[in-house]
């Protein structure tokens, strides 16, 4: 093979790798404008949404046999958001309809561009749910672990090394009033490779993945700086 042919092949391979399900850039929290809460010295984006309605985890098992992945992810997310990020977590009362909404949102988000707002068919139930639960925002978690064979796993590892962002765990926050996305994070947890569920006494791989996906999320505005800012009538 000539050098030019080698170059062409290399370019083609690079394009293939770069095109492997590249996720859109995360939505940046608002960085401009002054603080909202009194005494809060930090200009916040998603952190202004103190009270988050957390939808059930939209889990797509694919080839993976991880029977309890969704509840473990859910537990880890609620714990991390509450204890380490300062958000007040509320749950939809009807888990079945909330799960349907989560799955529809996740499916839409998979193909939506960065910063795109959900269509009315998704936005209306989303904002309605937030309104009913007096939430400042709605949080979606999508998990679609890839459990492939050994050869494909190796190639996936190569793809991850060269920067492909074929995310298997995503989280997104939507503002309650408008349904607009205000924050998004997408990762491919390194420990999520294999046909068996990540195991261990503390479900370390699940917890670690959740911490990794939520670590970039700013802390919620402290309650002590925002006392009763969004007191609403509960249904």
């Amino acid at each position, binding site marked *: 093979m000539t050098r030019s042919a080698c170059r*062409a092949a290399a370019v083609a391979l690079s394009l*293939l790798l770069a095109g492997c399900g590249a996720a859109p850039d995360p939505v940046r929290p608002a960085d401009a404008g002054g603080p909202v809460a009194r005494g809060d010295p930090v200009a916040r984006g998603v952190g202004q949404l103190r009270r988050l309605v957390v939808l059930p985890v939209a889990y797509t098992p694919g080839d993976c046999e991880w029977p309890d992945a969704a*509840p473990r992810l859910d537990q880890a997310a609620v714990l991390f958001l509450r204890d380490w990020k300062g958000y007040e977590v509320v749950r939809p009362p009807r888990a079945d309809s909330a799960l349907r909404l989560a799955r529809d949102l996740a499916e839409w988000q998979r193909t939506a561009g960065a910063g795109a707002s959900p269509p009315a068919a998704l936005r209306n139930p989303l904002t309605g749910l937030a309104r009913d639960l007096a939430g400042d925002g709605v949080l979606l978690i999508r998990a679609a672990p890839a459990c492939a064979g050994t050869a494909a796993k190796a190639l996936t590892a190569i793809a991850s090394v060269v920067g492909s962002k074929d995310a298997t765990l995503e989280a997104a926050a939507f503002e309650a009033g408008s349904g607009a996305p205000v924050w998004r994070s997408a990762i491919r947890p390194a420990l999520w490779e294999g046909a068996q569920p990540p195991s261990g006494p503390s479900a370390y791989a699940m917890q670690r993945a959740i911490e990794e996906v939520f670590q970039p999320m700013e802390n919620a505005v402290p309650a002590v700086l925002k006392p009763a800012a969004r007191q609403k009538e509960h249904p």
Partner: protein
Amino acid sequence: MYTASGSRISPAAALLACALLAACGPRPDPAAPAATYQPREPASEIERVPARRLERAAELPALPVSVVVRSAAGPELGPVDRSREKTVEEKRTLEGAGAIATALAAAAPPLYAGTIALGSLLVPAATGLELYARRDQNTIVRTLQEVDLPGQLRSALVRRAAPPPPDTAPATVAITIRTFGLAPRSGTCPTCAICVVADAELVVTQDGTELLRDPLLLTPWRRSVDAPPPVCATMTEFAERDGRLLRDAILETAQVLAAMTVSRLPAVAWTD
């Protein structure tokens, strides 16, 4: 001469390209049944320390106060939350880190000079990652020295304290910052999260009588009930944009300590 025709590309390259395409992975089937579960509230691992309040009888006027803020020491980098040092291994790690930090301090005084006590956060510098971590550490040390937490706290409280009427001896609200700085959330590694922490004591006295003594705790695993989680990030994240995140976190800590103080002292005359 070879040409770049398909027949000239080796089978191995073609196979690799096909495999890469396959590795992009089949998109998950959206119609696949989703796992259902009953959401539960996970138990917290954080120790919550109760907070006391200084109440005022309805018939009494609000208490005018003067504000004093003291700092027991300079900012610290290290494990201030001793409650997490549960195992012998952990203690050994932390002690080892301290020893390493001491050695580094002797070797590189410009970086480690000043009032900053060193702890396990300097482990990365001792494990062959000096070049990677040194610039971040410099930014962090400088930011900790530049942002005056006691001064910010005092300003916030003085702003909110109503001026005492003439001929009145005000009570004293004194806050002593016992510990302030950065501490690891759990483990110590170059990419592990470290948190902005503060441990202070609030004392209210009037005419030599102590009316209230209460801790204000903002540490990773032991916090006052009215304290938010500490701001945690990696060393690199704290150092980015000339230490902006760290600067914001320290300013927020000052405002939070002030707000906790005000909310615990309803007997005091505040401006709002």
